[in-house]
């Protein structure tokens, strides 16, 4: 789905991405994990075209993503912080997205509005909604156009356990439907539940990428949390072991 080769990005003195290579397999959920400042957000923003890499290449389905905005019609993005213009209602923001992207060939996916039971809130100004409700709207925006690729940045942060469960079920259903997911999260139980593949970032490079089972096997830990901690502490390159 996504092929990244030799990605580099520097912010001032900080080399955030340092020759990053990654392959995101289609129809699977890839979790991007790593300590703070390891380049997770910059990687996501590079894929979305929000940040321009200094060097390297990102291809989506074989086509380089630079210079053309149309590939984003196939991506749904749920940013970490949900902030919208406070005077607009959620329905207006959704309508604007429909206006901008045009109706996809199928219908809009508004299922989450029903599941979260937020339909009445959609007609109130976003400024008066709670952070959790805004996060639900945020999730709805990502799924709305039935995109091939969904990028979810800490999707369950700010959601209560019920809503969090609804969202996770939705992710699993859509993945079974053939959609590809890129996910970041600090909640390891969530990763354990959702992730098929793990890409472990450290200092702007991918230190491990492969199926969750391979990571567990390579580190000798049955629990994902311990396996990740092990890679974090030793910082060992595990690619060879995994493949």
């Amino acid at each position, binding site marked *: 789905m996504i092929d990244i080769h030799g990605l580099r990005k520097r912010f001032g003195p900080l080399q955030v991405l340092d020759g990053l290579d990654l392959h995101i397999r289609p129809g699977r959920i890839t979790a991007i994990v790593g300590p703070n400042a390891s380049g997770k957000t910059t990687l996501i923003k590079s894929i979305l075209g929000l940040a321009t890499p200094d060097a390297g290449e990102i291809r989506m389905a074989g086509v380089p993503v630079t210079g053309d905005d149309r590939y984003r019609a196939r991506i749904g993005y749920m940013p970490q912080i949900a902030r919208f213009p406070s005077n607009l209602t959620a329905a207006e923001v959704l309508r604007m997205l429909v206006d901008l992207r045009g109706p996809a060939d199928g219908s809009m996916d508004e299922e989450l*509005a029903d599941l979260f039971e937020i339909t009445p809130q959609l007609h109130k100004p976003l400024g008066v909604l709670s952070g959790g409700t805004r996060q639900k709207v945020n999730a709805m925006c990502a799924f709305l156009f039935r995109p091939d690729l969904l990028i979810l940045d800490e999707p369950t942060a700010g959601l209560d356990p019920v809503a969090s469960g609804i969202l996770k079920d939705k992710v699993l259903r859509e993945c079974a439907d053939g959609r590809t997911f890129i996910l970041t999260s600090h909640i390891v139980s969530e990763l354990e539940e959702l992730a098929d593949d793990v890409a472990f970032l450290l200092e702007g490079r991918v230190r491990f990428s492969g199926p969750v089972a391979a990571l567990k096997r390579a580190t000798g830990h049955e629990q994902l949390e311990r396996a990740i901690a092990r890679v974090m502490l030793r910082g060992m390159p595990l690619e060879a072991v995994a493949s």
Partner: protein
Amino acid sequence: MTPAVSGATGEPVLRVVTPQARRTARGARPMVKIIQYVMHDVVRGHWLLAYGAFFLLVTEALLRFGGGGTRALLSLANVTLLVTPLVGIAFGTMYLYNAREFIELLLAQPVRRRQLFGGLYLGLALPLAVVFVVGAGVPLLLHGVAEPGDRAALAALLVAGVGLTLVFVALAFLIAVRNEDRIRGLGIAIAVWLVTAVLYDGAVLLVATTFAEYPLERALLALMLLNPVDLARVALLLQLDVGALMGYTGAVFQRFFGTAAGMGLAAMALALWIAVPVLLGQRLFCRKDF
């Protein structure tokens, strides 16, 4: 759970997203859409209403207590030359900083950055300009502007206010795109306003009086083209026929130009003052990392 799709035709039924949205979706230019929604957001903010009310009150008060038509216009011109730049640059920077996450949301859609920037700019600048025109214009029209000369002056006043709004929102966007830190950005914005709207004319006057014995006309003209507020001031003076009342720079300009040529040059320079910051800001916006 209700399915989102219904009907035998396979036509999507949008409950949240109304059918109206679908009608306009096809072929509509994205920038126009963005302008619409930004305007929506701006118009519902209370501060826009407050801004309109301010001009309404000031104009009304000046007309009632400020003496005859021309004198009221002159006072209003002074208020306009101070306030429209301040409001444009302050609200412009704040709006762009506050819209940061919203911009990121839009940038993740298949939208060109160039169009997004244009949409944000016009979506904010147009309501500000319209509110100014209504706030300042309606009382003047209601009280009736008697002489034909005053009518031209009124038109010049409205054009100058709109022009300054467009210039200073453009400068605000340029500042906000360039500066990641919003406190710094807001500080620079206020400083730019202070220099262009308050200090500049005084400095020019100082230069003029200090070097009074030298033929400085051309230099002063150049100095005026370098400041959009002075430019607007000149445009107003040429209409109000009161050059000497509003600083030395205006007097020079009036002497140098016949009104038609002077207005033409002022309008052209003002247009440049809008276009250059907009294009520079757009350029930076297109390359920025969010």
